[in-house]
């Protein structure tokens, strides 16, 4: 590869060109094998179907994530299939005024949102939720135990709702409908990272508006009755001063949390359990020694990353792995590939809960956009395993072939996880 490559100069037949041809951004089956096959030779390639340069190695992905001066996050949640004008008009009519304040914006705007969010989303606050999160996990276990079933779907009966209920703790709302929140979030994911038809987009837009109204109403309620929760903390940080944070920004931050606080954790929980239960000896190891669980969580995040890829846009002409990219180029960082990069992880294609540097994955991103909820997600996953291994030590995966993954660009998680509870 030359030190100055542009798109038109990539010859057909070269590994870089072939990688772009072979890459199927929405197909999860075979994705890790694909990256393993290209990563040694191809650190970056162009994927025409999504108009993105795909970065495959950890050091390059890390460098981009850390360089918010030259790489913008503004395209991080841009819809893959552009929303039609009819949908935009509908959302305007519904007073849908969500704005990018966090994941898909850059400093100085990002700094405002982050500073306000951090007053509540921090380790000290999260620590207070440990007992509640454990009680929640136990309530799901009890329901499963009392169902009298031998075989249950762990996604349906546990991991689908569980992180949403934790999100409700953060929002200060214990009595909400977790299923409704999950359905809203699923639709929002499909609207951004999936490939919906026009009709599906319009249908989803109606739910998106509902979702927004819910977030707005929550903030309005907290203005009157503040509590010890995230919306109240944002309002307190704002202190009525638009130069710190506007009310619409507060609503947008709450709207963002309604998705970010549970969708990826549901997926991460499913992925982690899937990998552990596929390997009965490994499952048995954490049953016998629960002190192995924290690192098993990290290895799950590394090996079966739930946010598989994340986007950036070059603000200026840049060079990645020797390839020159013009300003405006879209970049897809494959976190899945980065997290198996042999340069960082010896035998990276092997799931090893004893791996000493498992924690150096970039499943939660890196740099100024690093996930603020990471400590809470880690806690939820740890407690999930602690409680499941205690309650059902002989649990076994059933009907593995029936498990599939929703085809989206950025997220990965099993749709179901059937298990036999008592071996």
């Amino acid at each position, binding site marked *: 590869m030359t030190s100055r490559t542009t798109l038109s100069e990539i010859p057909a037949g070269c590994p870089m060109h072939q990688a772009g041809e072979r890459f199927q951004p929405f197909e999860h089956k075979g994705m890790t094998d694909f990256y393993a096959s290209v990563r040694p030779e191809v650190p970056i390639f162009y994927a025409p179907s999504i108009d993105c340069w795909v970065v495959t190695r950890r050091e390059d992905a890390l460098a981009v*994530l*850390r360089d*918010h001066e030259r790489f913008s996050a503004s395209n991080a949640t841009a819809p893959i299939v552009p929303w039609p004008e009819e949908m935009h008009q509908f959302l305007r009519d519904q007073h849908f005024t969500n704005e990018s304040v966090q994941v898909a914006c850059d400093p100085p705007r990002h700094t405002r949102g*982050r500073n306000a969010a*951090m007053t509540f*989303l*921090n*380790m*000290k606050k999260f*620590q207070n939720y440990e007992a509640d999160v454990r009680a929640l996990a136990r309530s799901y276990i009890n329901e499963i135990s009392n169902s009298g079933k031998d075989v249950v779907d762990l996604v349906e009966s546990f991991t689908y709702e569980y992180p949403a209920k934790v999100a409700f703790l953060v929002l200060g709302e214990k009595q909400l409908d977790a299923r409704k929140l999950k359905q809203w979030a699923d639709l929002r994911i499909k609207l951004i990272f999936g490939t919906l038809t026009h009709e599906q987009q319009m249908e989803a837009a109606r739910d998106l508006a509902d979702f927004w109204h819910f977030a707005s109403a929550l903030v309005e309620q907290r203005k009157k009755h503040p509590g010890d929760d995230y919306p109240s903390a944002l309002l307190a940080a704002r202190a009525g001063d638009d130069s710190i944070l506007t009310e619409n920004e507060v609503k947008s931050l709450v709207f963002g949390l309604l998705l970010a606080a549970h969708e990826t954790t549901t997926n991460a929980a499913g992925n982690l359990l899937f990998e552990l239960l596929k390997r009965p000896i490994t499952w048995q190891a954490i049953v016998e020694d629960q002190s192995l669980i924290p690192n098993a969580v990290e290895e799950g995040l590394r090996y079966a990353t739930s946010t598989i890829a994340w986007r950036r846009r070059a603000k200026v002409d840049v060079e990645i792995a020797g390839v020159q990219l013009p300003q405006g180029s879209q970049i897809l960082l494959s976190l899945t590939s980065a997290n198996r990069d042999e340069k960082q992880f010896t035998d990276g294609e092997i799931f090893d809960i004893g791996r000493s540097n498992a*924690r*150096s994955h970039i499943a*939660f991103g*890196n*740099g*100024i956009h*690093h996930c*603020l909820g*990471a*400590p809470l997600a880690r806690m939820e996953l740890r407690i999930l395993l602690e409680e499941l291994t205690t309650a059902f030590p002989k649990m076994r995966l059933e009907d593995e072939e029936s498990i599939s993954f929703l085809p989206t660009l950025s997220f990965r998680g099993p749709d179901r996880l059937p298990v036999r509870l008592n071996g």
Partner: protein
Amino acid sequence: MPKLTFISSSGDRHEIAASNGASVMECAIEHGIEGIVAECGGSMSCGTCHVYLDRETYERLGTPPTAENDLLDFVNAPRRPTSRLSCQIKVDEHLDGAVISVPQSQY
């Protein structure tokens, strides 16, 4: 440029000339000092750029602000009286001669 000395957990010493205005964490990363992870890029949310200052420097800088103090309770290596988050320390002439020890692990 202020001179900073980093001491690794195994006792290796690295002296660097740090850039005024940058944070100690940024200077450490720029100079390839191992053991400072800084997952959150200096946003003060991860606690993975924890260091121990020499007592004199620590006292010269004064008590860390509340938010940093809170996060220091959650760092991986033991918190000590001179623990700080290196992303929150700005480099200036007052830091010249600082001796900064890096813990064995950040997580």
